[in-house]
């Protein structure tokens, strides 16, 4: 996963129980109610990277996940101008408890960027809590949350087991390599389902599960990148894929030249392995063990010599088993 995408995935992961990544925000009562949510903010609008809601206390966290170290001052001021009820409406939150709603912006960044982010927020003259995500811990910096449960939960660094889950593995800014990794399995899936062809837009729908997150412009950017990845796949492996670029009156199309499912079972596996190699999977050396081969040979010879006890015959019909 690109480091840029670690903060947004981390904030979602911290709200998601049942994982080895700690669900610290979930334990404090917060759930993600929206991602990439456009909301009114003062005189303008801001796209909130993740909206978190505590349904018991009616507390909203508006999380800005920083892909880098720079703080956009205008954007930070807009986060400061957010109103809880506007965000409730924008992310279609169901409020189930009567009582006032509150909102707290929070910035989430990579651990190595936290000092610059704090300075940037200072220059913007706003004071927000900041969560810094590292490879082995998440730490709280800057202002308090204003929620004693959260302040206590992040009073000490929260240990994490490496990268967060990849809810959002690519975005419109992702590199060609990242799109290649994402698009190739979608193409192989189509092959395994014996499709003859697929359009670039349909391939994006298949391969980018979170495409629905994005507005039209960002979505078109992603479709273009998916098409470019499909073109590269066809260039690397013309025996399997054929790419026909977009024209004035037709979408880009990938045609499947090879049909692994039409080959015999043993050959089928080899075809899929060849496709993986063409896409860059390295060939590893054999892992066979001389020691085991010796043992197997001995056992085979004993089997051929027959059962010494003469008690090998089965007196019944077959039983279920392997």
């Amino acid at each position, binding site marked *: 996963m690109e480091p840029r995408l670690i903060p947004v995935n981390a904030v979602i992961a911290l709200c998601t129980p*049942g*994982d080895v990544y700690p669900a610290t925000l979930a334990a404090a009562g917060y759930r993600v109610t929206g991602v*990439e*949510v*456009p909301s009114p903010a003062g005189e303008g609008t801001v796209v*909130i990277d993740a909206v978190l809601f505590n349904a018991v206390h009616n507390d909203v966290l508006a999380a800005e996940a920083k892909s880098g170290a720079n703080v956009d001052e205008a954007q930070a001021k807009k986060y400061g101008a957010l109103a809880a009820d506007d965000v409730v409406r924008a992310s279609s939150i169901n409020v189930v408890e009567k009582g006032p709603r509150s909102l707290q912006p929070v910035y989430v960044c990579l651990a190595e960027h936290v000092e610059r982010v704090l300075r940037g927020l200072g220059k913007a003259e706003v004071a927000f809590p900041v969560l810094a995500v590292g490879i082995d811990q998440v730490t709280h910096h800057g202002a308090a949350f204003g929620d004693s449960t959260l302040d206590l939960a992040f009073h000490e660094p929260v240990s994490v087991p490496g990268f967060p889950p990849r809810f959002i593995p690519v975005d419109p800014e992702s590199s060609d390599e990242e799109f290649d990794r994402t698009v190739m399995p979608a193409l192989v*899936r189509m092959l395994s389902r014996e499709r003859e062809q697929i359009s670039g837009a349909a391939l994006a729908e298949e391969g980018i599960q979170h495409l629905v997150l994005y507005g039209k412009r960002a979505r078109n950017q992603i479709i273009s990148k998916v098409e470019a990845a499909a073109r590269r796949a066809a260039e690397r492996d013309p025996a399997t894929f054929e790419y026909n670029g977009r024209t004035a009156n037709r979408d880009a199309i990938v045609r499947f030249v090879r049909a692994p499912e039409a080959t015999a079972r043993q050959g089928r596996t080899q075809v899929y392995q060849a496709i993986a190699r063409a896409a860059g999977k390295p060939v590893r050396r054999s892992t066979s*063990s001389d020691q085991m081969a010796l043992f197997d040979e001995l056992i085979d010879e004993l089997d051929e010599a027959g059962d010494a006890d003469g008690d090998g015959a089965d007196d019944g*019909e077959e*039983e279920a088993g392997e």
Partner: protein
Amino acid sequence: MNRAQLGDEFAVSTPRSRWKTFVLEAHDNGDADSLIAEAFGRANVSTTDDVHLHRIAFDEPIYVDSLDGRFWSVHTKAPTSAVAPQLKSIVESWRELDWMWLPSDHLRDIWPGARPFGVTADFNDRGLARSTKGRSDLTVKARGELAEPAIEFLANQFGSAAAVSSVGLEATSEDWGSIAEAVSRDGRFVAHGEDFGFHQAIVQRVIGRYRRFVESVERAALRWVALPEGGARLEGAPIVLRFGRRIPDVELFVDHLFSAREPFRLWGIPQMTGEDTAQIEAVDLHVGQQLRFDVAPGWMRVYLFDGGCGNSIARLVSNLQHHFDGTVAIVDEGLDAGIRQTAS
């Protein structure tokens, strides 16, 4: 032919014509008739008075009962050797069909109060692990009085390598009398008893528990739901498996696991993201669906997406039990309960 006549035909079992039932997981899009006709050969299929019951004229006749909807029961009294190869070929040819993949614990609690008279266990971590002594494998077959202690001995002494493949058990019921039933981890049943209804009840009990697990997995699938004003809400969560043994060489493990080979049939190009962590965008070639994986020495995170088939996760769990770690658990307690002996 109707369901009552099927019961009559299967009323008596003898040592030479035991009841056999193969359970298939089917995705028939609401049209079981068409899938049965296409998969088993239109010319072989006869309808019956029961719209869910089809007779298949193979060399030895079989009956496909699709009453359950998702899990079909294929009944026959023919020898397994006469039917199993044909069914295997059909399941491998049709993406809409798969076996049940019972977790090890499901085989340890087939029927309340039943007494085991046989157990087999097999484990082989060839390809997924490597030690100075090469691969580890273990094959156990115990019968009679040895069966019950063998099951306990396996669990207590072999830990990660304890994976039950099949069990034979005797059960009694006030209503149905007695039955001897053998069940394998891929959903094959062989039985001999006083009442075919008892056999069907046992099959349905096993299916019922398995279905609850598969459906709970599917409810956990990741789904992005568009919000009216823009953006989206995330539902579901990845499924995290925790291993009772560490993966000694993650690079070797993922290279083998995602090599498109049986029994996993997972295709992917692993990306090592550290010395011992890997990320994989994969395809389950059994059913042609995309999955995402993160792998570390002690755990594996699996992303099942909206509409994904929970049978993929059951197959993965069952095969990992037999090829890497018999003690594999699911971090989410609710999902983990679904693969345990005590699930009801």
